[in-house]
């Protein structure tokens, strides 16, 4: 569905990405992992049309995506929630609709609020919410205009371990919820166990200039439950990923 085709990026003379190519299928959860500073965020921004690649293309359903075009294809979640402090939860979530000039048909924000577990907090302001709740609001904001692809840049990196694990489970639940129209997730992370637990496939990048080191299939059953975290397969996959990362 989404095709990253030989994407290369130079910042002046700094070679950041080197011919990155991979594809995601519909309904797939793909993680991107790699050493810090290797260009994961740059890659995500290129996919999102915020940065122009030096060479290469992004294609969606076999059509190249124009740079900086309002295509409504991607929801974006950052490491920090980036909520506007003068807007309450519901107004923050509906911000993309205002920008895109879309009407809030069938009160989808209300449904979405339930899906992300924030019902009852519509009128709260960001500074009244915990970090986890703020990030839920950010996820709801990314999903409100029903983009087919959700891009997440270390979305739980700023959360504590317990909240982080919980939010991982929640993300899977939201992603698989019937009301969510978003099918594909591209998820950048630093955490090997997180990548294994959440993904169908993990793309491992090398040090800068980043090349694709390996793409690993995670054939753990879905829905993923906490039980999986104690299975041998889960540990084997983690070990395999760590080894690849080490040699990269």
């Amino acid at each position: 569905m989404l095709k990253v085709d030989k994407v290369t990026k130079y910042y002046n003379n700094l070679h950041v990405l080197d011919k990155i190519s991979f594809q995601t299928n519909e309904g797939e959860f793909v993680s991107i992992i790699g050493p810090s500073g290797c260009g994961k965020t740059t890659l995500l921004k290129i996919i999102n049309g915020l940065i122009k690649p030096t060479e290469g293309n992004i294609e969606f359903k076999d059509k190249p995506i124009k740079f900086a075009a309002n295509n409504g294809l991607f929801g974006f979640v950052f490491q920090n929630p980036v909520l506007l402090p003068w807007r309450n939860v519901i107004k923050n979530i509906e911000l993309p609709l205002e920008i895109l000039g879309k009407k809030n048909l069938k009160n989808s924000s209300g449904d979405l609020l339930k899906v992300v577990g924030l019902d009852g907090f519509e009128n709260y302001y960001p500074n009244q919410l915990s970090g986890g709740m703020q990030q839920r609001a950010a996820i709801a904001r990314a999903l409100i205009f029903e983009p087919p692809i959700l891009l997440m840049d270390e979305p739980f990196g700023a959360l504590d371990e317990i909240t982080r694990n919980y939010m991982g489970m929640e993300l899977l639940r939201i992603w698989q919820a019937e009301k969510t129209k978003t099918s594909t997730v591209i998820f950048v992370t630093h955490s090997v166990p997180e990548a294994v637990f959440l993904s169908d496939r993990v793309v491992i990048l090398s040090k800068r200039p980043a090349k694709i080191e390996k793409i690993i299939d995670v054939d753990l059953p879905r829905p993923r439950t906490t039980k999986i975290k104690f299975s041998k397969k889960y540990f084997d996959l983690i070990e395999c990923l760590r080894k690849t990362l080490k040699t990269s």
Partner: protein
Amino acid sequence: MFKKNFKNKLKELGIPLLFLVGGFLIWEIAVSVLALPEFILPKPSKIIFEIINQFKFFLPHLGITMLSTVTGYFIAFLLSFILAVIFVHSKTIERGLYPYAIAIRVAPILALAPLVVLWFGIGITSKIVIVVLICFFPLLVNTTQGLKTADEKALELLNSLSASKWQIFIKLRLPSSLPFIFPALKISSALALTGAFVGEFLAADQGIGYLILLHTRTFDTTTAMAALLLMVLTGIFFFLLISFIENKVVFWQKPERI
């Protein structure tokens, strides 16, 4: 919750008021004990009675001073805002004009004021121009700064949705700038009054500044100090009004006290 709020409010207002009463008492007693003549230092009770008894006399003068203050203040706010918006969108214009904005600020207002009176006459216009000159710079600096401080990530978010410049301005830049604009508005509220006052001191036939000048020259110190006290009280009210509006508008950020 309410009770606690009320208690805090009481403390906030009550303590300064208590000190004021104490200060007035010491002043009152000192004038009596030292037997100071009224034209040197009148008793505070005398000044207060003067205000109450002569209120009708003071009111039009206070009115005219406040009119030039508030008018100049708003014109300065409007001008600085427009210029700040232009600065944020054009680096060239900012580079070209910023040094001259600084020049206006660096030139002492006392040196500029006589020229302004020369050009605009002794009427209210010259006072308004002086107020604009004195308020303009702090407002310009803070508004420009404020419009530039929009969160990098929030900008990225809006850009990823292909938001227009106008949408970015109205939904992000403007609200982000409010916590910067209001402190400047508070500083300028005090400056504005000074500006009007300076103008009236130089040349005027009405206004609080004119009254003070006139009555200190005729050694009617009580009237002069009553006029001064009235102006100070109005200034404080003006400042508190802006603070109040700030608290309502910039509700998401508790402002630092000035």
